[in-house]
């Protein structure tokens, strides 16, 4: 059953077949889209007509490749900058929240902590419509009373950022708090007894200790933002993020350029995961 116990051959074989099937199931969609990104055909389907890079580089009317498609390139840039800003904001506020809940005592701490955790269990769609409703309400109120129209309160680039940040900060908080729990408080107390202020102690002692978790949390927030659609779809304005752009293409006008961009995403994530894997292995050995 486990490593140290003997098993019948049939049990071991059956188990291995199940695991193999599971991983086949897991990688099948990724392989399928990747392979079809190089198929010399105008349709996203087999048969295989030979290898081509048209869906990446071609710039003809019939086949507009990924790098020739300015709309697609724009949405990639939008997604990258959005994800960078969201990850930075989430990193800062999430770390502050982790410090607050782990190190400070105050009234209503339990309630506040509960609120900070709720984005884990609130469906993204609900976060999206709630923020859309309240920002529209605030925008109308300001326009009525002061006559100014603020773009932030309408579906726009910045509203997407705030929407994604609202749950990104929770994930950062949990990841940083997990490391903070392992922190030896006496280090901070030593700094305090050496006349450091509380802020200095946090900045020079606690934050450096937390750095790996903060960097990891930044990456998690970046990826959450980059692939988010449930919340974003309600808040997006005139500049779509990549998932929004891809979604509308899948619904209305599929061409193999979708496979090209999907392949690129799979490639980047895989490379990133592999590098991460080797760095971690080097650390442990």
């Amino acid at each position, binding site marked *: 059953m486990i490593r140290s116990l003997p098993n019948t051959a049939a049990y071991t074989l059956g188990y291995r077949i199940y695991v193999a099937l599971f991983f086949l199931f897991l990688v099948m969609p990724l392989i399928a889209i990747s392979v079809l990104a190089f198929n010399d055909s105008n349709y996203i389907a087999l048969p295989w007509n030979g290898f081509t890079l048209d869906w990446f580089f071609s710039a003809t009317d019939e086949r507009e490749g990924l790098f020739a498609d300015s709309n697609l390139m724009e949405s990639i840039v939008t997604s990258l900058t959005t994800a960078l800003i969201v990850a930075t904001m989430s990193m800062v506020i999430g770390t502050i929240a982790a410090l607050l809940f782990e190190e400070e005592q105050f009234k209503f701490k339990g309630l506040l902590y509960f609120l900070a955790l709720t984005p884990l269990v609130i469906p993204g*769609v609900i976060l999206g419509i709630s923020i859309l409703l309240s920002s529209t309400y605030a925008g109308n109120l300001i326009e009525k009373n002061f006559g100014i129209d603020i773009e932030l309160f309408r579906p726009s680039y910045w509203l997407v950022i705030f929407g994604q940040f609202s749950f990104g900060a929770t994930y950062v908080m949990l990841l940083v708090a997990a490391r903070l729990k392992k922190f030896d408080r006496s280090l901070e107390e030593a700094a305090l007894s050496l006349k450091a202020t509380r802020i200095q102690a946090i900045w020079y002692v606690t934050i450096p200790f937390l750095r790996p978790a903060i960097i990891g949390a930044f990456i998690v927030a970046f990826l959450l933002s980059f692939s988010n659609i449930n919340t974003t779809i309600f808040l997006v304005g005139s500049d779509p993020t990549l998932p929004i752009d891809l979604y509308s293409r899948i619904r209305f006008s599929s061409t193999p350029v979708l496979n090209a961009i999907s392949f690129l995403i799979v490639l980047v994530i*895989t490379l990133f*995961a592999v590098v991460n894997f080797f760095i971690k292995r080097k650390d442990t050995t």
Partner: protein
Amino acid sequence: MQQSIKPKKPFNVTLYLLIIPVLLWLVLLIVLPHLDLLISSFQIENDNGDKVFSLDNYIAFFKEEIYWLTFVKTAAYAIGVTALAFIVTFPIAFYLTKVISKKNAAFFILLLLIPLWVGELVTVYGWMVLLGDHGIINHFLMAIGLIDEPINMLYTDFSMILGLLYMSMLFMVVPVMSTLESLDDSLIEAASDLGASKWTIFRTIIIPYSMPGIVSGAIIVFMLVIGDYLAPNILGGKSSLWFTEQIYNKFLTTFNWNEGAAFGFLLLMLSSGIIWLVLKLSGQKLDRVGS
């Protein structure tokens, strides 16, 4: 604990520096929006364009069969997919933590994480390419002569459930693996030495021990499935309506935001109600879910 070491200051600057940004985040982006959701759900626009209190949005939900049927179906399917995710992934979590060596497992864990980080849209699109009438699976089955006509798989409940399972199941594996990792092998060895069958060991040791991980995983999976939009929308057929699609339609197609708010609030009540019940029954805390 801090107070016992350093003298209590009358005014804790650090606390205020830390609490203000957190309060801004929680009040402006969590509390107020959800209050607004609740208030909007009880409002309709009268003939003068003013917002007035009304129960119409909720009455519409119960009057129209399609709405509450979709609601019930979404809930039932989400529970089903959660159970399925557990059944499909538990052997995998067990295999990676207890059967093979840590070194080999690292490679498989890497494979598990890639679809997770690639994002739902790309993987859902992948399934669309695989399952279509002219898709890869049908092409393959016809090429080897197993079938003559393509099997209709895409735009059915089958493809929708497959997509929902695929995008959510990895969130079950991760917490289950982390509880299984801390299970001492000698417990299983001892039971086995005393003549317990595999099924007995599984039922009386492994499952009870990994319960906290299963509960965490189930909550995350359930929440993701019930709030999912892409898999039902792209892979599901006309008959496989999902409740999030109703909300989407209210907001972005018919622009009836108040009714949409009521639907959103009902979905929020449903998901938090079931999660609360699961936490209550298992005696687990919410913050365990996130770790």
